[in-house]
Structures are given as C-alpha cells and as structure tokens.
C-alpha cells in the first residue's frame, strides 16, 4: 500500500456527437471493474445532467435527492409596478412584456429571463426582485457496481455547468474518503459549458466516436476542446463495422493527429437489448462481440491511467 495519499485519477468520456455509446460503455466499465476478485474502489459520475441515463443501467436502489440551487430569476411585484417600461428597455433577452393577465403591469417570462438583474436596477419603484431558483436535484447513490454521483437538471434550466462542477467535486471528495484510485465521468454531448466543466482537471479523455461523417466532424471539435484544456486523449470507435470507410477515415485522422486509437467496438444488437433490460452489456452478454471489445478498451484505459493492481 502506498503511504502517500495520492489524488484519484479522473477519466472523462466524451464524444461531441450524441448517441455514440458513451453511457453504455461507461456502464460496462463500472461492471468490469466491480467484477474482479479484488475490485478497485472506484467512483462514477454522470455528467450529462440534462439527459442523465447512467442510472438507468447502474440501477441505484433508494435515491436520496439533494437540492441544487442555481441562479436567480427576476420577478415583478404587480402591486408596485407603474408600467413605465424602464425594465423592458434594458432587457437584452426579450423577456419582459405587458402581463397577459393584466396589461397595466409588466411581466417577466421566466423561460426567457437570463437572470442578469439589469431590470432590478433599472426599476424606479423597486418593484423587481431576484428570486433564487432550485434548478435540479443531485444524488449520491449506491449501485451494484460502486458509488454513482448523478443529477437531474429540471427541464429547460440553465447552469448545467455549475451542476456538473458540483457533482464532480462531491465525487472527488468521496473518492478521497474511500481512497479510490479513479473517478470515471460519463460526459455530456457537445463542446459547451457542461463539457468544459466535465473535463476540467481530468487526467485522460476517452473519445467515443462512430464511423460516420458526423462522428468524425464532431470528434475533431471535442478533441480540440480537450486539447485546449490540456487533457491527453485517446479514441475508440463504436459501431465500427457499420461503415468501414468511415472507420478508415477515423484511423487516418487519429494517426495524423498522433492520437492513440485504443479500440474498435463492432455494432452489436446486444447493446440496445442490454439497455432495455437495464443492465451493462458485459453483465447480460459477456461473450458478445461488443462486450469483448469493450473489455479490451477498459484494460487499455486502466493501463493508460496507471491504476495500480492490488
């Protein structure tokens, strides 16, 4: 046992394009780690907080929701409003209109309000105040494969990046408590604010792509993002046999960029079947082509993260 209490390594799984298989692969990783004689203590994070699916496969028992309070939205007190229009004059989000129920006062559309508070300061009557918003819940859950940190952003809300940062911090603290070597983060699609929050401070990026023009186009953008934040990255191709020419193009791109291609997972109808059963594919169909290939990707990933074997 090491005497130094070293920080857990963080793996971020990204794709750019949605639906390439990040969550199915993350779930299989959780099972493959737990399924050893002496499993490494490992912590999992679902950082796709507005379309969170990892818990549908890892199936935690009881959920213990903790509230996530994000930003604030402006609200007008109709009793104080004199309908002068100073608020709508400063609003850059087209969020302030005459109240549909009473056109003698102004009303702020909560869907359009950005929470900037410019109107609060513009109002001569002090009729507008900022009201803090609960924007979701987060959970620390026990699953058959380890502890999962996940969240549900309420539909349509902002601040997904803040919520990602919050659950990642909680996961890091917990990883220290249990002396875990590794935190595995199932990332969101895209390259914007929740992706940036998810990849901050991570040690390795695993990009799960698919062999299509779309997969390659978005892979380039997510690789650019990981490079910008100095996260070393590797690629694996999911559904690799669907379009062999696309797979060749990704191989060539990876070689030209000097990025290691650590695996090719074939299309396998066992993957959606396992998802429907709510189990990792490696649990239900351990001998399937996809499960075998994912196992290989997992072994390469753990060796890249230099996790110690017990």
């Amino acid at each position: 046992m090491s005497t130094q209490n070293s920080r857990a390594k963080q793996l971020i799984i990204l794709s750019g394009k949605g639906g390439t298989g990040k969550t199915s692969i993350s779930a299989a990783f959780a099972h493959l780690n737990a399924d050893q004689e002496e499993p490494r203590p490992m912590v999992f994070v679902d950082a796709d907080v507005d379309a969170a699916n990892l818990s549908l496969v890892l199936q935690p028992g009881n959920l213990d929701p903790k509230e996530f309070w994000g930003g604030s939205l402006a609200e007008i007190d109709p009793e104080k409003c004199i309908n002068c229009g100073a608020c709508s004059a400063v609003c850059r989000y087209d969020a302030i209109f005459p109240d549909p129920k009473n056109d003698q006062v102004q009303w702020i559309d909560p869907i359009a309000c950005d929470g900037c508070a410019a109107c609060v300061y513009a109002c001569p009557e002090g009729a507008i105040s900022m009201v803090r918003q609960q924007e979701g819940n987060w959970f620390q859950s026990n699953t058959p494969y380890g502890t999962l940190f996940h969240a549900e952003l309420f539909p349509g809300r902002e601040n997904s990046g803040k919520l990602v940062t919050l659950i990642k911090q909680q996961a890091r603290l917990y990883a220290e408590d249990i002396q875990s070597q590794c935190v595995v983060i199932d990332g969101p699609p895209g390259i914007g604010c929740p992706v940036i929050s998810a990849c901050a401070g991570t040690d390795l990026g695993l990009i799960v792509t698919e062999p299509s023009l779309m997969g390659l186009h978005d892979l380039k953008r997510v690789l650019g993002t990981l490079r910008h934040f100095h996260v070393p990255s590797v690629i694996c191709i999911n559904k690799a046999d669907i379009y062999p020419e696309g797979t060749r193009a990704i191989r060539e791109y990876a070689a030209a960029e000097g990025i290691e291609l650590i695996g090719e997972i074939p299309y396998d109808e066992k993957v959606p079947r396992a998802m429907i059963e709510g189990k990792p594919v490696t649990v239900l169909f351990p001998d399937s082509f996809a499960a075998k290939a994912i196992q290989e990707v997992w072994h390469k990933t753990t060796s890249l993260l230099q996790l110690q074997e017990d």
Partner: protein
Amino acid sequence: MQIAVASGKGGTGKTTIATSLALSLASLAKVRYFDCDVEAPNGHLFLKPEFSESTPAVIRIPQIQTEKCTACGRCVEVCEFHALAQVGKNILVFPQLCHGCGSCTWNCPENVIVEVPNPIGTLERGMALENIEFFRGLLTISEPMPTPIIRQLKKRVHPQPNTINIYDAPPGASCSVVETLRGVDFALLVTEPTPFGLHDLKQMLGILSDMNIPSGVVINRDGIGDDSLEETLREFNIPVLLRVPFDRALAENLASGRTLVDVYPEYRNALRDLYQQITEIVGGKTK
C-alpha cells in the same frame, strides 16, 4: 411555419429527419434550415450548402476606461455572473463568464464602461441542395455559451408567410434547447424506442408543456426496443407521425452523408404527409 426538430437524447436522428424534411418540402414552399446545434452541427454534411456569408457571433463585453474609473466596485456588485472582479484599484473582466447583459454599463456611476464585441463563434449563411436557404451557427472551441449564438442565428431573418423554417435543435434539455424552441409553432420530436430515448423524451415533454408548444413524434430505429415508449406517448396523448424502421443498410448510407430521402425516395411523400399533419395540429391549436 416554424418547426423545431428536437429529441432530448443525442444521436436519435434529429439531423436525419430535419434534413430530409427540408428536402421533401423544398418543392412546395421556400424552406430555410437553421442548424441550432452550434456545438456539434452536422446538417451541412447532408444539405451541402455553399456558404456565401460568414459573420462573427459576438457578446458585447465591458471594457473599463481605466483612467476615468474610480474603482467604486459598483460594476462588480451588480454582475450576477461574477464576470467582473476588483483587485485593488483594478477591475478585471472575465470574458467567458460575461453574458453581455449590459447591467454593469448602465450601473456605472461614472459612465466609464464601454462595450466591445467579443467573438464567441460564427454565423454562416448560404444556399444548399434544392434551393434550401441554410443557416448555421458555430461555437468557437473552448467557448462555453451556445445560447447567444442560437439567439443571433434565429434573428438573421424574420419569419415570413409561406416560408417553412426548420430548426435542428441540440441534444439535451437545457437552456440551448429552450432557446431553439422559443417562438416555434411545433416541435417534431425524434426518438428511439429505448429506455434512454424515453427518459430524455420525457424531459423534452416537460419543456414543451411549460412553453405551450404542440408536438408529435418520429420513432426512429423502430423495432430495436420495447413498448414503453408507445405506452408513454399514449399516456401523454402525443401523436406518432412517422416510423423509420432500423435498417443496417440505411445506417451505413447515412454515415456516408447520404440523406434518408436519397436512400429511400418514398420518404418524400411520407414527410410531406407528416408536414400536412403538423399544419392540421397547428391550425387546430390557433382556432
């Protein structure tokens, strides 16, 4: 008519349906296609526009005229996004946190803040296949905020009668999806019959009910999953407007950049019928 194509879950086939819908309707009306997935836009791979215009998408960020600044700290105090900070007599601006709301500018008692454009992406426009007018926003890598780009992209042109605007939405169910949906007449939801597809579709239905936007569903990869999707759609009273069965040959063709209606031309009529159903639903709602 303004139609958003959205899904919740990523990779369900939004762009497949949105591009083929645009192609199917192009002979009936003037069609404009807006790729609002500014983080990972893919519509151009299918509709092959020739971009003739490219303008920067900007946020107006504060610049402090330091020689006149009294370092009173009012700008820092009013900024809800922590985009300004005071260190001694200096005010620092963090462009990536700034929402460009203007609050600091208006609240500065000395009037020493000017606003300068900070580019966070590009807005492009050009003509695509079958005379479709194509608009695309592109978030610059490492920039966090897609929503201002979507907002600016949608404002490039005013909706006109007899014009069909199709907005290809980003995945997920957060603020960028809401920005795409604002002001549309109808949301066409593309999903797959799996637990992930269903879970994320429910998030979308929550947003649409808050925004009072009618919707209908395209079930893509029909046959790979189970019945729970259809049960939910019945429960919420959401019509299924089209089914596209899972087909490996189709998946391969789409991967190479061919469109659904190019591979299977019979979907042109199916998508025109779908549009007809949308007009009936939207017309029924406004009556």
